[in-house]
């Protein structure tokens, strides 16, 4: 919001899109595609974590189940890839209804644990249902077809997949800026008051959960098409952990911070794999620890805080409609 007040928003938006378009020129196209998918996933998780205050530790279930379904649709039906991806996203949203319905009754660490448990359930189903999912070998040879156009070159596929991701990002942004999004923030900051004002808190949470899962599914489906295979890793808990890490790195509750976090983590992983450095975990872990210790608002949050004028910074907590969280940390929407 501060950035908009500075009239920087259109410039930032244009710059962001330009970078997105130029990305496969700057880095290797399949890696660029990974960044886009993880960025959408991170934004979807931030929708729930940053704007509804629910830390899900089980979003791999939605990313992964969509990945499998997208793969199966593309493998067996030969439909164009956007249809497969949308089918996967829809399935993820449907799966989120019962899981969300049961999970949103709890908050905080309990919510995280319940979602983790459901995600592990999905993981075991995927592992055991070998006839369908291929077990730990996964699904291979998923075609990338778009009405007869062969998109097997990752460079072209990047431009074919990017619009879907951008639509997903736009949707997330639209949700956050809608009256519905405002209610979510109210639910996050003071659920008792939101309830007193007559909002059915659990139903709002559930809808946010389902939307977030659907967007995660969109990202997961796109990721599958980008690689041409699905592996068991997509539904493993480390995937849930990785995306939360991206959001925290970029800045919780900033929406676009997730994009930065995703780009950074994916690039780091890619760079380290050829850097000849043996302990990749130590590097990513150190970056994460430093960010959490030094930039508690995450990259985007810190940048926004720094670019905002001192007066705005001081007035921040009062004027920003999002308000303050329990720990007194002002949150920007």
């Amino acid at each position, binding site marked *: 919001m501060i950035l908009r007040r500075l009239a920087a928003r259109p410039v930032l938006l244009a710059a962001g899109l330009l970078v997105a378009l130029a990305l496969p020129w700057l880095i290797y196209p*399949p890696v660029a595609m990974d960044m886009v998918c993880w960025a959408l996933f991170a934004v979807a998780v931030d929708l729930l974590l940053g704007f509804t205050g629910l830390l899900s530790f089980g979003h791999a279930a939605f990313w992964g189940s969509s990945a499998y379904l997208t793969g199966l649709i593309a493998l067996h039906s030969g439909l164009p890839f956007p249809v497969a991806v949308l089918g996967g996203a829809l399935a993820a949203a449907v799966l989120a209804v019962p899981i969300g319905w049961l999970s949103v009754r709890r908050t905080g660490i309990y919510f995280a644990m319940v979602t983790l448990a459901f995600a592990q359930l999905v993981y075991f189903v995927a592992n055991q249902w*070998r006839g369908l999912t291929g077990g730990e070998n996964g699904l*291979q*040879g998923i075609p990338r077809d778009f009405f007869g156009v062969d998109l097997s070159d990752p460079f072209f596929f990047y431009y074919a997949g990017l619009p879907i991701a951008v639509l997903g990002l736009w949707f997330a942004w639209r949700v956050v800026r809608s009256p519905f999004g405002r209610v979510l923030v109210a639910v996050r900051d003071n659920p008792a008051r939101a309830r007193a004002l007559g909002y059915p808190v659990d139903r709002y949470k559930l809808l946010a959960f389902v939307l977030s899962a659907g967007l995660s599914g969109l990202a997961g489906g796109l990721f599958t098409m980008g690689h041409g295979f699905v592996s068991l890793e997509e539904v493993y808990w480390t995937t849930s952990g990785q995306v939360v890490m991206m959001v925290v790195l970029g800045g919780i509750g900033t929406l676009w911070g997730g994009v930065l976090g995703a780009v950074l983590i994916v690039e780091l*992983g890619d760079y380290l794999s050829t850097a000849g450095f043996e*302990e990749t975990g130590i590097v990513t872990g150190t970056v994460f620890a430093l960010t959490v210790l030094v930039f508690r608002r995450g990259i985007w949050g810190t940048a926004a805080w720094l670019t905002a004028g001192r007066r705005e910074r001081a007035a921040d907590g009062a004027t920003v409609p999002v308000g303050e969280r329990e720990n007194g940390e002002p949150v920007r929407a």
Partner: protein
Amino acid sequence: MRTYRRTAALAAGVALVTAGCNGGPGGGGGKISDGKIEIAVLNDQSGVYADLSGKASVEAVKMAIADFKAKYGGKAVAKKIEVTTADHQNKPEVASSKAQELYDRQRADIILDVPTSSAALAVAGVAKSKKKIFMDIGAGTTALEGAQCNKYTFHYGYNTYMLAHGTGDTITQDGAKNWYIIYPDYAFGQDMTKSFSAAIKGAGGTIVKNDPTPFPSDNFSTFLLKAPGLNPKPQVLGAMQAGGDLVNLVKQYNEYGLRKKGIGLAVGLMFLTDIHSVGPDALAGTKFSDAWYWNASPDNRAWADRFLAKTGKRPTFAHAANYSAALQYLEAVQRAGTDKSDAVVKQLEGYKFGDVFAKNGTIRAQDHLLLHDAYLAQVKPSAEVKEPWDYEKILKTIPADQAFQQPDAACGL
């Protein structure tokens, strides 16, 4: 907004056109693309498989290049042969993007190693679409030469069938008819159990019981306590666990004194480095299949000495297989006179040879599986270990034509 949109469209347009120009392998020039042969080793360099293959395999490949150059000298098909490497962290996504990058950017002519079945299958898909050669060494899945086989993918070294049959057949034929199998409940464990059961039954034995164990797990006491009470009493405990699980299982097997109770131990997959990390006494007497052992013959030993000088440790079979795969690839390029994939594949298919790793080797044309002699090995007690890394006693050689399965009909090469 409109201006932006036009710019975006223009950018996208330019992108598409230029990509079209860049695409495709470099035409023209000599018979060797880019004037050099680039060998890429893609494996785990930081995780659980880093020890048994990892960076030392890059050294093994360098040895192959040196040997090739020494053999052909000025007549070598390419003056410049380079090796490049990447860490796939055992993640199939990383493996697939790295494989694409190695083929496209680093201009790799071949990718070697790739442990972890899912990662190997992902790279096989990349090799197929890029029409570049891939020789898998580190992964055990038979899907590589079965349903997922393709023209450019070779499986070089071992597979689950080889592991199961060497051990299962031989031990049963040697008189231990009753087996109790415990396996980790995931694809590798299930595959291994299926192969082992077939091998044991084929040799006239019986499976008293087979039990899935949780994976990963560090407590196997339920299964170990149950073993002596089974009816009929099993003579062998077949353990399909690998890595850290195997280490725990073996320790508990010893603690419960099952060997003294007349129940031997057979292990599905074990590497020299596993024995090295647990110590030979914990595993003494255990029988298992090995694709190669460094101290089995004088020429193995000579090669292992060179490897020791470079890396400070003795080679596992994966190291030797990487050496052999690189060498046989270079030989095939030499015979073909070009590094064009199709011509090299033609040279590799059906090729019969022998080298330090592959004894009586044949690259089967039907499914691109390397057939070679395999071994039934037994871990020595520390009293018999005469020098560092001297852990194995080779009990028996399993001839190349019996060590591996018949071609799978699912592979339509």
